[in-house]
C-alpha cells in the first residue's frame, strides 16, 4: 500500500474529534484583532540587506500593520495588545521575509 493509499484509508476515521475541536476552540487563549488603523503606505524600506558580503537582500512586496491581542478565541478580548509595522520582502535566495519595520513596539491596554 502506498503512502497515498494509506492516507486515503484512514480518512473518515475519528469523526468524534469534531467535538474535541470545538472544545479546543473555546479554550484557546489567544486571538488577533483586526488592525485598528489603516496600514501606512510606506512604513518599510524598498530594499533591505544583511550587510556587506551577506547575500541576504530583498525588495519590498507590500507592508502593513500587525496587531495581536491577548484574549479568548470566542471573541472576548482583554489585557494588552501588540502592534507593529511589518514589511514583506522577496529575498535574493528565493525566500520571503516578514520584517518588523519600526524600531518600537506599540502597546495599548483595553
Amino acid at each position: 500500500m502506498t503512502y497515498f493509499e494509506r492516507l486515503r484509508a484512514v480518512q473518515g476515521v475519528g469523526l468524534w474529534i469534531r467535538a474535541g475541536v470545538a472544545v479546543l476552540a473555546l479554550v484557546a487563549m489567544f486571538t488577533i484583532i483586526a488592525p485598528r488603523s489603516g496600514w501606512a503606505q510606506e512604513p518599510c524600506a524598498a530594499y533591505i540587506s544583511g550587510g556587506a558580503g551577506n547575500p541576504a537582500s530583498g525588495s519590498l512586496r507590500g507592508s502593513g500593520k500587525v496587531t495581536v491581542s491577548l484574549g479568548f478565541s470566542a471573541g472576548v478580548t482583554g489585557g494588552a495588545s501588540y502592534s507593529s509595522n511589518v514589511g514583506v520582502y522577496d529575498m535574493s535566495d528565493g525566500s520571503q521575509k516578514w520584517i518588523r519595520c519600526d524600531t518600537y513596539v506599540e502597546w495599548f491596554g483595553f
Partner: protein
Amino acid sequence: MSPLPTVLMNHWARAGARTGVLLATAGLPFLVLAACDAPSSAPVADVASFTESDSAYTIRGLIAQLDIDDERALFGSVTAVVENADGGYVAADGLNQRMVFMDRNLNPVRTVGRHGEGPGEYQLPGVLIRNGDQIAVVDQSHARVTYLTSRGDFVRVHQVGGFLSDATVHPELGLLVVGMEFSDHYLARVAESGQTAFAEVPVRFRDQSAVFQLPIDLVATTPDGLVHVLDGSQLVLASYDGVGRLVGLAYLPEPMRTSLLERDANRIEALGGAARVLGSQLARSLQVLEDGRLFVRITYLDTVGLVLDLNTLRAIPVTKPDDSQWEWIPRTGASFFDGDRLVMEGLKDGPAALVIAETELVAR
C-alpha cells in the same frame, strides 16, 4: 527582543523553531519522531520523506511575456499568480493593491481593486486561490478573503480578522485559513458563526522558545478532500482528513530541507534576528495541480519548485536551465505551475513583469 509577555511570545513561537527544534531533530529517524507525535486516541499518522526524482521539469522555451513597461499593467510587485477559470491568469499586485486579469498570453484585459478598507479594496493582497469559477483574494493585512468572479467582478468579502498567511477553500469545510487564532492548530475553520480550530500541530513542532513569530505555513486541498499543510518552519507536509485528524507527515527531500533551514537561520541573524524577522517563508506557495499532485514554490540551487507526488513520494524538481540565455528568469517571486506551463514573475530590473515558460519532463 521586544518586551512581550512570555505567554504571548510562546503563541507566536512555533514558526520560529527553525534554529532550535528543527536542527536538533534533523538527523533523527522520522518514524521514531512521528510515533511520539501521535495522539493516543488516534492511529499513528503515516510518516515518510519525499525523495527527489531522477527526472525534472525543465524550462524549454518562452511562450509569452508581459513587458515590465507595459502600461496596461505596471506592476508594483507581483505577490501571487493563479490560473483563471477562463484559461487566463490573474496576478496580485501587493504594492498597488490590485488584481490584473490577463488572457492566456498575458495580455491584460482588466484591472480591479485599489488601496482602501471597503469592498473591493485591499491592503496587501498576497495570496490568490482559484475556487471554481471564482478567484479568492487573501488580503494578509486586512485578514479577509474577497471573492471575485472570473471577470473580476466583486462577489463578497469574508472578514476573518487578525493575520492571515494563506488559505484554502475546502468543498465541504469551507474556508480554512492559516492565522493566529489557535496556537496549537495550523488552521482555523471560518464560518459565519465564528472560527474553530482545525489541523492540530504535531507536538514535536510546537516550539516553546520565546520567539515572536508570524505563522508562515501554507495550505491546500486536494480533490480527495485531504487538507495539506506545509509547515514552513519544518518543511514537512502534514496531511489531515475531513475532521482535522493528522493522517500523514512527509518531509521535503534531503539535503534540500536541512540545507535551506540551516542557511535561513544564518540569514535571519544577519537581518537582525528573530526580534526583527517576524517570519521567513522558504516555501512561498502551495498549489494543487489538476491531477492532485502538489506544487511547492521553493528555491534551492537550480530548483525553483517541487512537484510532490503523494502516490510515489517523489518530489520532481522544476528547474531553471543552466544556460546564460535564461539568466534573466528569476529564482524568486510568485509563480504558478500546471505541469506544463510555468508562470513566473520577472526580474525587477529585467525585461518582463511576468513570463510563461514551457517545461518538459526530462531525465536528469
